[in-house]
């Protein structure tokens, strides 16, 4: 307001207030698909009580939430659903990958499992464990609060855009083999090949 710029104090104050409000009322959108979802329920329930940290208002509508909790294995079939939910959430939004499966695919390195949700969306906090104990999950929320506060800089290892996500979820960029090659590969192995492999193994 005045010419020396002292009015800047108000926007600064407002920003601090917004940070304070955001970090203490994180509304989670739980996307619990498997085992980690059960531990997530434990965290929400009476013993661990996530409401001590202001994150208990669970909403299943992505438009009302600002913290996406991905708890559990995400298969390639589920990946488009998850990306849709992420796109439906309003800014500012944060993502926590709970457990080994959503962080990296975990022990399921197979034909149907997405190897980490950071292929399709930016992740703020990864929680290790299979599944992580509730304390680990609470620590992740505390960590996220520091990120929102600005005490820790927000740096995702991977920052896929929408187009990156589409690429990750389609044949073209991710796969070494094309669709036709897969069909062809289906016919390369014969009983004789298996027998020779077996003979080799026995010989060894």
């Amino acid at each position: 307001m005045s010419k020396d710029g002292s009015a800047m104090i108000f926007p600064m104050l407002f920003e601090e207030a917004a940070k304070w409000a955001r970090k203490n009322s994180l509304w989670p959108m739980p996307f619990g698909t498997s085992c980690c979802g059960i531990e997530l329920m434990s965290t929400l329930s009476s013993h661990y009580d996530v409401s001590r940290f202001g994150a208990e208002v669970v909403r299943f509508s992505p438009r009302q939430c600002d913290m996406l909790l991905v708890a559990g294995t995400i298969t390639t079939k589920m990946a488009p659903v998850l990306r849709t939910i992420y796109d439906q959430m309003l800014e500012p939004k944060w993502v926590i990958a709970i457990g080994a499966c959503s962080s990296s695919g975990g022990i399921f390195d197979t034909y149907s499992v997405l190897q980490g949700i950071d292929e399709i969306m930016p992740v703020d906090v990864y929680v290790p464990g299979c599944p992580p104990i509730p304390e680990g999950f609470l620590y992740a929320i505390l960590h996220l609060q520091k990120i929102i506060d600005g005490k820790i800089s927000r740096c995702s290892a991977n920052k896929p855009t929408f187009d990156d996500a589409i690429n990750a979820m389609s044949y073209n960029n991710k796969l070494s083999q094309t669709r036709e090659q897969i069909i062809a590969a289906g016919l390369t192995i014969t009983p004789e090949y298996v027998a020779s492999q077996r003979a080799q193994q026995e010989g060894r």
Partner: protein
Amino acid sequence: MSGAQNYENLKSKYGDKRKSQMDAAFELILWATSPTDMVTLAAELKSDKEFLFDYLVDLTAYDNIDGVDGSERFVLVYQLYSQSTHMRVRLKLLVGLDTQVKSLVSLFLGANWLEREAFDMYGIVFEGHPNLRRIMMDDRFVGYPLRKEYPMKQRQPFSDNIKFHLGQTPLPLSNEESGENRVNLNDFYNPNVLLNLGPSHPAMHGTLRVMCRINGETIEDAACELGYLHRAIEKLGENRSYHQWIVYTDRLNYCSSLANNVGYCMAVEKLMGLTITDRTMVIRVMAMELSRIIDHLVCVAINALDLGAMTIFWHFYYWREEAYTMIESMCGMRLTTSYARIGGMSYDLPENFEARMRRFVEEFPRTLNEVSNLLTSNRIWIDRTRGVGIISKEDAIKYSLMGPVARASGVDFDLRRDRPYYNYPNLDFDVAVGTNGDVYDRYLVRMEEMRQSVRILQQCVAKIPKGPIWVDDKRVKIPAKQDVYTKMEDLIHHFKIFMEGIEIPPGEAYSSIEAPNGELGFYIVARGGPKAWRMRVKSPSFMLFQNFEQTVKGGKIPDAVATLGSINIIAGELDR
């Protein structure tokens, strides 16, 4: 068991024209000669007055690319169970790449999804199947993932969600696809409004998807889509050693991991002909009953939460945490336990276990009674659950349902009593059976089963035998840690078990336990070596969810939520 004579009778009755053999667990295998013969055989066995094989327990296939079982490419396997004689029989059929197999849906309704799964995983075509399309994988998926030549890590991602099918025809969803059939939402009296529930829906357990055609609030037709949590656990079973695969059993039904560990280890022990020690037996029974309690706790708590009764959730989760603390002291993990080992347990019971368990069995029934007082005669609860989601006894048998859901419908069947394993014959417990088969009865059956489990735990904890927890067998026994550090032989032995795995002779076995949700079976085909040739999980949730389409028809949308909560589908074991 007096079953030996029965098996001889069965063999002489059906096995003279066909090839027959005994498996590692002394169960009869009959080889059908042709697809037509398979239908005849199944129909004869089903209507046989003496044996009455009325349950289709499982239907699966395995790859026969190495030609051990015959010249054809696949072997199709049917497991039948007889409620009256408690016998099992396994039917097998050699199937070539081009063979058209006859569908068994007309005989056993439960075969519907099982045949779809065999088609999805192996590409076996069933003639006369009402709706033969992929079940786990996307419709656009190329190849058949469980065939031996399909690479385990070959992913085929798609950038959009699967289009939905209702019955046989694709749903008319958009104008481009089918102009005139388009659902007009402006037409108030249009009885063809489609409602999609899931996969991300609070009542759909995270991964289930149901498409309903609704008229007002009444569901006229429903179709389920699954496979959103298909993690290829069965393919992993063929690519990991027997010992390594124990950790995957935890993730099948993650609400009751302990029971899964025990069930799997039991199957491998059956294959190897091992008998575990008395102490391990009691520990395993306690582990299974504890996991039954925590599984039912989650089921009832979530069911009540879905219907708006939040207090139950807080009450039950307190005790679930207590049980978790106990499990953590037993094996070091809360949820994914990996407690059992082939031939023993990973750890012996901790020192203060008995005192802790005594406290649990004394104090937990109090909470059970408290919740029972809150719900059983609660007007709102009764209105929401009684007469809702009814599964008749006939339907339960036709769809091969097992476990608490079947018992609530009046099927008096419990593997712990009918095909006893471990020391269940010495334990005193009752089998809870309902009459109406609605949500309310399922709730009552689950509450009663928890009480019976507490009874079993009381009896077990009163006399835990002393002694070793490992069988004295060099093939499977994992050496103690201090010996590994000090003795050369034990170090080598430890290295061989963990790096190479346990060698298991060729053979096959099917073993099942009464898991919290129903019969959980493991069917293992071994061709020698440390890895299984085929690892099949017969999961109870698969059958339960198959019946769901029928159960919700004619009900209201909120009733579907109540029904789904009460049948306790665990996606990990549904999709595997």
